[in-house]
């Protein structure tokens, strides 16, 4: 009975000091409905440099609802909005007392509780926030695209590895008419299972690292000859996609095969125990680019494979991360819609062991990679480049490198160099979006 609904997302600590535009707008909107209050509130603690806003999460199992003694709170089955029926509200304050997220405003003088009603689906605060810090998370639109999960629960990947979540996400969007291809690497454990035990319920194949795009070609072409449109989807690591299997990838792109090729880039050969690949970043530690003695990690910058793929002028190329699922979903949908050629999606997929961070932090790392422009989210669609997630105030690269042990040895000089690479690459993409 899982149900998912839209909810407001507020960026962390980016409000301009003193700003309360969202609350003012909400109050105005509510007044026009004859109500007095605001569903969103800014809070500023200048001494701590805190300038944020807060609102209700529209919880899936709202505790406020359970605690209301007059049955005034309901969760709408259709839009998921948690509403208070003002006429019934006693003003007892219990909802305010139990909501852990500060989602309910209670005013003793009014003897009423008040909360966000998401403007019944199109929240106005989103439009007025001067720093675009509020967005409506279209959770339902993602889940609405989900098919049955073809993977069993659990996997033999490292605990907390985002690759499995990413693959699951991809497959749930792709649906059952999918042939899945992997190559030797971490994800094959999920794609193909081990031995005679597998955890997948769609046809899947582990190729050699050099034969993924070609095998996909064969399957796709054979079914095409039979007059059947099947999805051929690859989910392979960077070693396969960008090194040893790069030639066939480029070949398939040039032939414009109607396949969807995804590289989950963990920036190295992780399944063999962390060796450098051509996407290992500048300065990055691996066992073959050690940071000891005379060596300071990898000397050269990573191969910019998504851009190279775009240079093939296939219909669709994108970068994506699981940390921005709406963005990812859109890209998957676009890739799936392409029927006349190839789609390539390059996914940054942090490796807990190889990058050196603690287990639950994958999303934090992904987010930092995006927020520092280390891994900009963009797409190339039939000749047009577009940045799909604009980072408002890109953070310095140190906000990313500080999270990862693989960069721990870098000194200012190298950090500057890495920053320079990041800037250069981002500007290149930026200029491409302007030029095309």
């Amino acid at each position, binding site marked *: 009975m899982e149900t998912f609904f839209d909810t407001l997302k507020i960026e962390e600590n980016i409000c301009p000091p003193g700003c309360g535009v969202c609350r003012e707008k909400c109050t105005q909107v509510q007044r026009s409905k004859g109500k007095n209050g605001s569903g969103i509130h800014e809070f500023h603690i200048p001494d701590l440099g805190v300038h944020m806003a807060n609102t209700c999460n529209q919880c899936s199992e709202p505790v406020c609802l359970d605690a209301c003694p007059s049955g005034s709170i309901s969760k709408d089955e259709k839009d998921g909005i948690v509403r208070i029926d003002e006429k019934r509200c006693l003003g007892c304050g219990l909802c305010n007392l139990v909501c852990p997220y500060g989602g309910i405003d209670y005013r003793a003088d009014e003897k009423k509780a008040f909360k966000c009603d998401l403007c019944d689906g199109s929240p106005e605060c989103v439009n007025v926030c001067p720093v675009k810090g509020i967005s409506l998370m279209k959770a339902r639109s993602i889940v609405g695209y989900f098919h049955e999960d073809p993977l069993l629960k659990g996997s033999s990947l490292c605990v907390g590895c985002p690759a499995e979540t990413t693959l699951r996400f991809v497959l749930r969007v792709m649906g*059952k*008419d*999918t*042939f899945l291809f992997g190559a*030797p690497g971490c994800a*094959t*454990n999920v*794609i*193909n*299972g*081990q*031995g*005679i035990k*597998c955890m*997948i*319920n*769609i*046809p*899947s*194949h*582990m*190729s*050699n690292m*050099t*034969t*993924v*795009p*070609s*095998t*996909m*070609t*064969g*399957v*796709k*072409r*054979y*079914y*095409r*000859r039979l007059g059947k449109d*099947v999805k051929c989807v690859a989910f392979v690591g960077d070693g396969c996609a960008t090194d040893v299997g790069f*030639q*066939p990838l*480029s*070949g*398939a792109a*040039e*032939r414009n095969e109607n396949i969807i090729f995804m590289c989950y880039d963990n920036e190295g050969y992780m399944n063999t125990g962390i060796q450098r690949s051509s996407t290992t970043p500048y300065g990055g530690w691996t066992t073959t680019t050690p940071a000891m003695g005379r060596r300071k990690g990898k000397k050269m910058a990573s191969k910019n494979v998504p851009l190279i793929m775009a240079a093939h002028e296939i219909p669709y190329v994108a970068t994506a991360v699981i940390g921005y699922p709406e963005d990812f979903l859109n890209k998957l949908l676009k890739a799936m819609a392409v029927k006349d050629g190839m789609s390539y999606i390059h996914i940054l997929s942090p490796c807990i062991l190889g990058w050196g961070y603690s287990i639950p932090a994958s999303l934090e790392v992904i987010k930092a990679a995006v927020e520092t422009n280390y891994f900009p989210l963009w797409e190339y669609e039939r000749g047009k480049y577009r940045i799909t997630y604009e980072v408002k105030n890109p953070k310095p690269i140190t906000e990313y490198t500080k999270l990862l042990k693989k960069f721990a040895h870098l000194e200012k000089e190298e950090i500057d160099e890495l920053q320079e690479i990041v800037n250069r690459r981002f500007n290149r993409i930026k200029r491409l979006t302007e030029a095309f």
Partner: protein
Amino acid sequence: MSSIDLRGQIRVLDGNRAGAYGVLLCKPDVIASYPITPQTPLLETLYKFEAEGLFDPEMVEPEGENSAMGTLIGACAAGGRTFTATSSQGLSFMNDAYLLAAGNRFPIVMAIGMREQVSPHGVISGQQDAVLVKDHGWIQIYTESCQEILDSIIMAYRLAEDEDVLLPVNVCYEGFYLSHHSQRVEIPRQEEVDAFLAPLKGMNRLKWTLEEPMVFSSYTVPPELYTEYRYKMCMAHQRAKAKFDEIDREFAAKFGRSYGGQIEEYRTEDAEIIIVTMGCSTGTAKVVVDRKRDEGVKVGLVKIRMFRPSPKERLIKVLNGKKAIGVIDRNVCYAWNCGHNYIEIKTVLSDLDRPLPVLLDFIAGLGGADITDKHVEKVVERTIDAAKGKTYEPVTWLSLE
């Protein structure tokens, strides 16, 4: 009708074109091509056929041989009939996928327009490329003539896709001597070939479909199962031998041409000495055998057609009781300082009745050199001498003399 549709006609064709007609007649679903001399014209011809609408397979032009084989693996896994051809470095570059095809038991048919193998580089005839991959799990058929190339391709599909076999098959022919030399070729009619291949239709074969999802090529197979796979593949190879003889008989009945199945036995019955050949030098050798027969020498010839799996039983039968065997090898084995067929026959010797025949090896025709009647005559004479008890060199580098 297209002017290049020569089905049902008798024409003068080189080996590449003859091979191309063999492929056309088998109507593959997917063809992948990557050019490399000397097989290139075979693939080119297929493109002409396709362009002229003689058949309508999916034509894929990958960026390299490994991807060509990868493509066929995909198409074959899904249930399709496939074809490609390669030579020399193309074959070695394909190795990654070449092994995968065999290990997964995909009934792919691939022609090898044989050529020397690097290094030194040489766009020259030879057998070294194909012989080198003798334990990569493929069945290999070696041919003598342009007609045999065409016919062998048709037989190769029958063999590969047979539910008792399910193994990939190479049809090998020497570059230039066969690929580019023209001979009289009878091109069968489509209906005849359709009828010949018809038994494959009802054969069992696992297919990779959406309806019955299946994981293939999984990661860590437990040792017992791994061994079982190996064993079963070995058994499939063993079954392929008699099966090939059967297919040859059936082919003869339908088309009036027989090649003897695994091996061709030429005037061997009363022969005291046997010359062993493989590939196009057989024609020259047969001429010499006839000549020597006229002189009263009891010499016969065995042509190895099926190099892989080894036609052991047939060889034992034909070689039993012979006094001497002279092997002509157009390839080398560095380890033993001999040719590969010499090793093969030597292995068979232990199963023969005593006294064992003496065995001599003659390495000839490397680097695209001709194997002439003079060469073969030397082979016959020295083998006779050895049979008579004279001292002999076990291995002779004939072309160096």
